C-alpha cells in the first residue's frame, strides 16, 4: 500500500513537473537561422536580436524602447570625446566568470578589430580604456551624439573565456572566418544557449543567475528556422510551435480566425529597397558602360515600379510605400520626401530613351528568398515591371546564406535589401553605412561603389554635430540628395506581423526584435 501510494505520488509529481516544464517552454520559429553566435562576425539585425537573449550590452532598450542601464549602471561625458561608464557589480557570465572592466575593454577591442564584420555599426568609438575594475572609459574619435544608441548592439563577452578558447579575434561571416565563439556563446544575458545546431534548432534555457529580475516566466526557448511559409504556419496551427515571427502576410486572416491563435502586427522601421551597382560596368553587360550611372536611367527604373499594385497584391495592404529611406519614427525623417516616384511606365520609357537606352539593357536583379517579407515575389514582380519598359532583368533568388555574402562582395547589379536604421534608430545609420562611400569605418553596406561627396561630408559632420536642430537639418539634406539622385530605390516599410497562441504575451516593437525576456506564457 505504502509502495503504491509512493508510486502514485511520484507519478503525480512527475506529471506535474512535466506539465509545468512544458507550459513554460516557448517554441518559436522564424524564416531563417542566426548567421553565427559570434556578436562581432555579422551585421544582421535578426542575428543580433537572438544574441541579445544571451549577451547583455552596457545599455539596453526597455519596454518603451527607451535606453536604460544594463551592464553599465551610470555614465557621464567627461570630455568632448570621452565617456565614463560605471559597471554593474556582482554579475557573472553563464560559465561562471565574474564580469569586470577587462571584459568590456576586450569586447570593444574585438568588435572594433579590422577583421570584424560588425565594426561598421560603431564608427565613432576609438577604443575602450580600463579606469578601475568597475569603471571603463570609451574614447571616441570625436564628439558623437548617438553613442548610447549604438551601445545597445555591443554584446559584452568574457575575456578569460575568449582567451581560453582562442577567440579574442572576431570571426567574420563575409570572409568565412570562424572561431569557437561562432558556435558557442557565454554571455551575462537572460538566457543561456543550451545547444546550437545551425539551420536546425537552437535551445535556450533561462539564466537563473541573471543580474536583473526576470519579468518573463519562460524556462526554455526552442528556436527552429522554418523557411517555408506554409510549413511554419502548419506547425503553429498543429500545436508544434507557440510563436511564428514573422508570420506570412497571406495567412494572417486565416490564423486570426482560428480559435486559440492571434496575430499582432504593426509597421516596422525596416525599409525595403533596391541597391544599385555604381561601378563602371554592370555584371550583366561586361565591357559596356554602366547605364545606372545616368540619373535618368535610375529615375526611369523607379518610375517603372508599380508600388501601389505591389502593396495591394504582394504586401496585402500591410506595408507602407515610401519615397524616403527612413521610417517616420526615425530621427531625420522628412515628410516632404516620403512620396514615392509615381508609377508611370511611359515616363520611364521616355527617361530611358533620353538616356540613350530606348532599346533597354540587361541587368542582374539579386534577392534572398528567406529573409525579407515576400522577397522572392517582390523581385519577380519588379523584374516583370522593368521588363515592360525594356530593361531585361535577370532575376536570381537564393537563400540568405548565399545572398548576403554575395551582396557584401559587390557581385550584384541591383539587389533587394532591408535597412531598419538599427541600432541607432537614427538616419545617420543609413547615411553613414549604406549611402556614404566605403572608406574608414563608413559605407560598410555600400559594396557597389555608390559615392556622393556631399553625403560623405554630411555623414562625417552629422556624426559629431551636438546641436540637434543642425544635426537633423544635415540628415534631411542627405536624405534629399539620396532621393533626388536615386542613390537607392526605396520601396516600402515592411510590416511586423507575428502569429502566436492566444495564451502567449510578447510585446511587439517596430524594430522587429523579438524580445522574449518580456514574454509570458499563461497557463
Amino acid at each position, binding site marked *: 500500500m505504502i509502495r503504491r501510494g509512493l508510486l502514485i505520488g511520484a507519478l503525480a509529481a512527475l506529471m506535474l513537473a512535466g506539465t509545468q516544464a512544458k507550459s513554460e517552454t516557448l517554441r518559436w520559429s522564424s524564416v531563417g537561422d542566426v548567421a553565427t553566435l559570434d556578436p562581432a562576425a555579422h551585421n544582421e539585425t535578426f542575428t543580433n536580436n537572438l544574441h541579445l537573449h544571451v549577451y547583455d550590452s552596457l545599455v539596453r532598450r526597455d519596454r518603451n524602447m527607451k535606453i536604460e542601464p544594463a551592464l553599465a549602471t551610470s555614465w557621464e561625458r567627461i570630455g568632448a570625446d570621452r565617456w565614463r561608464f560605471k559597471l554593474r557589480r556582482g554579475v557573472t557570465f553563464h560559465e561562471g566568470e565574474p564580469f569586470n572592466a577587462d571584459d568590456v575593454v576586450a569586447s570593444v577591442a574585438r568588435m572594433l578589430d579590422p577583421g570584424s564584420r560588425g565594426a561598421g555599426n560603431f564608427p565613432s568609438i576609438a577604443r575602450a580604456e580600463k579606469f578601475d575594475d568597475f569603471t571603463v572609459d570609451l574614447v571616441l574619435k570625436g564628439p558623437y551624439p548617438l553613442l548610447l544608441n549604438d551601445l545597445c548592439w555591443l554584446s559584452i563577452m568574457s575575456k578569460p573565456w575568449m582567451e581560453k578558447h582562442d577567440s579574442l579575434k572576431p570571426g567574420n561571416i563575409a570572409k568565412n572566418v570562424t572561431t569557437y565563439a561562432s558556435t558557442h556563446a557565454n554571455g551575462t544575458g537572460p538566457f543561456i544557449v543550451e545547444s546550437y545546431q545551425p539551420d536546425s534548432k537552437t535551445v535556450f534555457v533561462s539564466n537563473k543567475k541573471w543580474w536583473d529580475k526576470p519579468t518573463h516566466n519562460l524556462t526554455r526557448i526552442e528556436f527552429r528556422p522554418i*523557411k*517555408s*511559409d*506554409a510549413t511554419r*504556419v*502548419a506547425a503553429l*496551427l498543429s500545436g508544434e510551435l507557440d510563436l511564428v515571427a514573422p508570420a*506570412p502576410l*497571406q*495567412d494572417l*486572416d*486565416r490564423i486570426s480566425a482560428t480559435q486559440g491563435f492571434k496575430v499582432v502586427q504593426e509597421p516596422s522601421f525596416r525599409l525595403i529597397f533596391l541597391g544599385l551597382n555604381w561601378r563602371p560596368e554592370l555584371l550583366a553587360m561586361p565591357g559596356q558602360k554602366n547605364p545606372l550611372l545616368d540619373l535618368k536611367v535610375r529615375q526611369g527604373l523607379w518610375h517603372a515600379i*508599380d508600388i501601389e*499594385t*505591389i502593396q495591394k*497584391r*504582394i504586401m496585402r495592404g500591410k506595408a507602407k510605400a515610401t519615397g524616403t529611406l527612413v521610417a517616420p519614427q526615425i530621427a531625420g525623417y522628412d515628410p516632404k520626401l516620403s512620396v514615392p516616384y509615381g508609377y508611370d511606365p511611359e515616363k520611364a520609357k521616355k527617361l530611358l530613351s533620353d538616356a540613350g537606352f530606348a532599346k533597354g539593357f540587361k541587368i542582374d536583379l539579386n534577392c534572398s*528568398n528567406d529573409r525579407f517579407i515576400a522577397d*522572392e*515575389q517582390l523581385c*519577380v*514582380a519588379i*523584374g*516583370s*515591371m522593368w*521588363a*515592360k519598359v525594356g530593361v531585361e*532583368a*535577370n*532575376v*536570381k*533568388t*537564393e*537563400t540568405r546564406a*548565399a545572398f548576403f555574402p554575395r551582396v557584401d562582395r559587390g*557581385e550584384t547589379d541591383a539587389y533587394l535589401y532591408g535597412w531598419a536604421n538599427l541600432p541607432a534608430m537614427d538616419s545617420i545609420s543609413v547615411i553613414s553605412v549604406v549611402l556614404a562611400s566605403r572608406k574608414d569605418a563608413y559605407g560598410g553596406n555600400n559594396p557597389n561603389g555608390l559615392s556622393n561627396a556631399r553625403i560623405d561630408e554630411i555623414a562625417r559632420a552629422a556624426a559629431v554635430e551636438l546641436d540637434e536642430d543642425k544635426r537633423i537639418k544635415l540628415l534631411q539634406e542627405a536624405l534629399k540628395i539620396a532621393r533626388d539622385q536615386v542613390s537607392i530605390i526605396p520601396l516600402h516599410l515592411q510590416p511586423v506581423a507575428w502569429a502566436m497562441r492566444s495564451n502567449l504575451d510578447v510585446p511587439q516593437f517596430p524594430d522587429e526584435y523579438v524580445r522574449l525576456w518580456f514574454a509570458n506564457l499563461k497557463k
Partner: protein
Amino acid sequence: MKALASRYLSLKIPVFVLAAGVFAGALTLVAVLAPFIAPYNPTNISSFNLADSEIAPLFLGGDDPRFVLGTDNQGRDLLSAIIYGARISLIIGAGAVLFATLLGMTLGLIAGYFGGWIDAVIMRVADVILSFPTILLALLISGIARALFPAAAEPEWAPIILIGAIGTHDWVQYARTVRASTMVESAKDYVRAVRVIGLPSRQIIFRHIVPNIMASVLVVATVNLATAMLTEATLSFLGVGMPPTYPSLGTLIRIGNEFMFSGIWWIALFPAITLVSLILATNVVGDWLRDRFNPKLRVRL
C-alpha cells in the same frame, strides 16, 4: 530490326498501358509544342501583370476568361505555366536519362567486356554512388557546381546542373544492367567466334554486343525517366532546382505551397496533378516494358 518491329506490333497491349502511353505521348507533344499551344509564355517576365495575381480558375468562379486555370501569385497564367513547366520537367528528365545512359553504357560495357581491375574499380565507384540517396547526391552536386562555377547561379545553367546532378546518380543502374548483359553476351558463341577471327574489341562491342543489349537499356531508361522527373521536381520544390522565373512543375508546386493555407490552393494543386499523372503514365509504360522484356516473365505473358 524488322523482326524486332513486327514482334512489337504483334504484342497485346493492355488498355490502361495504352491509355497511359497515349496520355504521356500527348502531354509530351503539348510540351514540345508549348510555344504554339500555350496562351502565354510564362518565362517571359514582361508577359504577366502583378495586377492579375491570384485569380481563381474559371470553374471556381474566376471571372477572367483569359485564365482558364487561374493565375499564380505573380499573375502568371497557370495553364501556360503548367505547359511550360511540363516542358522543362520533360527536357530535364530526358536530358538526365540521356546523360546517364551514355555514361552508364560506356562504363558498363568497359566493365563487362574487359573485366579485371577496371571492372572492379568501376563497380566499386558505382556501389559508393548507389549508397547515396538520389536527392542527397543531387543536392551535393548542384551545391558544389554552384560553388565552383559562379556562373552556374545563372538561370540558364539551372537545367544543365540539374541534368548533371540527376544523371550522375542514375548512371549506376545502366552500368550495372549493361555490365551484366555484356557479360552474358560475351560468353555466347557468336562473340567467341568473332573474337577468334580477330576482330578488334571496338568492333565486337559496337557491332555485336550493343545491338543485343539495347532492349534492356531502353527499358531501364523508360523506368528511369519517371524517377528523373521526380528528382527534378523534388529539387525544384526544395528551392535548388529551376528558379521562379523559369518554373518547372516542382517550382510551381513550391510557389503554390506558400499559399496553401490562404485559400489559394490551385497554384499548387494543378501542377501537382500534372506531375503525378505524367509520372504515373511513364511508370505504367516503363513497368509494362520491363515485364515484357523480362525473360522470366515472358513465358506467362
